[in-house]
């Protein structure tokens, strides 16, 4: 029985490898692979969670581009604005701070790193309490009280309910909590670089710290730079709930803070147009993929 024999041979050789992988693998397939494939398939259908999905071809995508005014006018520009500032902006900020921290001795470095990291420890839920008090719409709000106290403001402003301020506040809040795991990775990466590299460069006459950053630091820690970049991009697109958390409503006031993630929730869970929501999800996943490819171009070591 050659087939059985070769199976046994395989089992003996590779069986335990798959046994160790199995739990993770199953969970990975069930909660990541299947949902992504399902989103992809559903995006070609009309599905309201009650009747079986009806095949629509590319209709969802076509109406997303041609008929969904909210998406084209608010959601897409908002998402891009938010993601570009919070993603690359937060990333550059994180790298800069990591570099500065690396210039300090261990104890102060650890303390500052802890302070900078602490905002990203806790998710929006606990912080909503703070932001609500800080940006509260009446005069007991800290920002209003401060501005009225200094005479810059006569009337309190409904910060979280006004379309012209919501996006700015969302960006500030997100940048505040963007020193996450990518920041720690970059800090560790900078500290790992062998001092001899800098010594050698100094021997060769490199005297400016900017030159050091661009010719030694960044090239020596490309893998950490890429890891940090991926984490920033994912974080920026993931942070969709912030606008809804702050303003307390989905849709956000006049769609000012409406991000693609909120749009998905709006269609999926409020209107039950799950096929359409799935199409939006696919667009979101493709956007993340596009930006991470871009980062791989910059920092990747392959190709």
């Amino acid at each position, binding site marked *: 029985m050659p087939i059985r024999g070769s199976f046994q041979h395989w089992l003996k050789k590779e069986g335990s*490898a798959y046994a*160790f*992988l199995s*739990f*993770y*693998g199953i969970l*990975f397939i*069930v*909660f*990541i692979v299947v*949902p*992504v494939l399902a*989103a992809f398939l559903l995006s070609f259908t009309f599905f309201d*969670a009650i009747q079986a999905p009806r095949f629509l071809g590319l209709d969802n995508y076509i109406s997303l581009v041609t008929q969904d005014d909210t998406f084209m006018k608010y959601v897409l520009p908002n998402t891009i604005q938010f993601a570009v500032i919070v993603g690359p902006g937060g990333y550059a900020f994180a790298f800069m701070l990591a570099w*500065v921290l690396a210039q*300090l*001795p261990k104890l*102060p470095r*650890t303390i500052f790193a802890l*302070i900078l990291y*602490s905002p990203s420890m*806790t*998710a929006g839920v*606990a912080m*909503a*309490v*703070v932001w*609500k*008090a800080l940006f509260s719409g009446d005069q*007991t709000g*800290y920002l209003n*009280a401060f501005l009225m106290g200094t005479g810059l403001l006569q009337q309190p402003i409904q910060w979280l309910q006004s379309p012209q301020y919501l996006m700015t506040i969302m960006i500030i809040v997100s940048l*505040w909590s963007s020193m996450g*795991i990518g920041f720690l*990775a970059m800090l*560790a990466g*900078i500290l*790992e*670089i062998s*001092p001899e590299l*800098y*010594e050698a460069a*100094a021997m060769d*006459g490199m005297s400016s710290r900017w030159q050091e950053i661009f010719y030694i630091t960044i090239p020596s*820690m490309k*893998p*950490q730079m890429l890891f940090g970049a*991926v984490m920033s*991009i994912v974080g920026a*697109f993931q942070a*969709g*709930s912030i606008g809804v958390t702050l303003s*307390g409503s989905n849709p956000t006031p006049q769609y000012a803070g409406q991000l693609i993630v909120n749009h*998905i929730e709006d269609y999926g*869970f409020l209107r039950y147009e799950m096929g359409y*929501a799935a199409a939006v*999800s696919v667009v979101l*996943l493709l956007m*993340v*993929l596009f930006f991470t490819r871009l980062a791989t171009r910059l920092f990747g070591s392959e190709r």
Partner: protein
Amino acid sequence: MKQNAIRRYTGVRNRGINPQGFHVSQLKFYVLLLPLSVVMILPIIFIFSSAFKPPDELFAYPPQFFVVNPTLKNFTDLFSKLSTSGIPVSRYLFNSIVITLATMTASILVSSAAAYSLSKKRFKLKRALFAINNLALMFVPIAVTIPRFLVIERLSLLNTFWVHVLPVLAMPVGLFLIKQFIDGIPDEVIEAAQIDGASDWWIYWRIILPMIRPAIATIGILTFQAAWNNAEISTLYVNDESLRTLAFYLSTLTTTTTGANAVAGQGVAAAAALIMFLPNLIIFIFLQRQVMSTMSHSGLK
């Protein structure tokens, strides 16, 4: 100039990257970092401060940042309170603790076992599977909430304890970090054990796990944050109020923006926010050294 630059790196290394001690040249960095840190930490201090504020300070005008007469009233209020559906708050806290501990334990075992396999075992699909996991680092769970809901519904996991645990366990970044860390363990260690006749499980349990403590601490923290702060699972997949988490309860307190509830709830919300935040901080302070040592293996090629 050149002489200067050389001295900078050859003398006692107090300048440049990772200095041993203080040097005047570091002052500019302190000048930059100090105000920034104050801004970064103010909201955190605010959580502490407002959790202990009595009602008249919470609604004082002009508002006061720091608490003057600290009180534990907000905490006693919190725990004597019933949610709108009659569940005591301590029940949410209990759920959160049990769910978080279960998720952390399971996540550490599941990810480290998979990481051991991907790092040290030899099999054909190894590289391909690791590449798939790397691709999944970009995965945005929030994008597939709906298909996930359908999967969870099919598996009849809705309204169960397990729906809190299982979806969080497949954490690509956790597997990635542990795998990179195990890569740093020399193969000889494992080969030596194999020659002595050790089984795979013995190697995993007695050699790998003790050697990757920093990575375990790191994924423990990441899982802790994912589970402890999770309000979405309770909102989306759980209808049974007695199975929901403290994070969820807190989110119900803060989403009511107007009305009497918002006023009455602020002190309670501040206390709950502190209970949500504090464990994150304590765990990180204790494990930060391990986290940093894991992070130096975090490069993505």
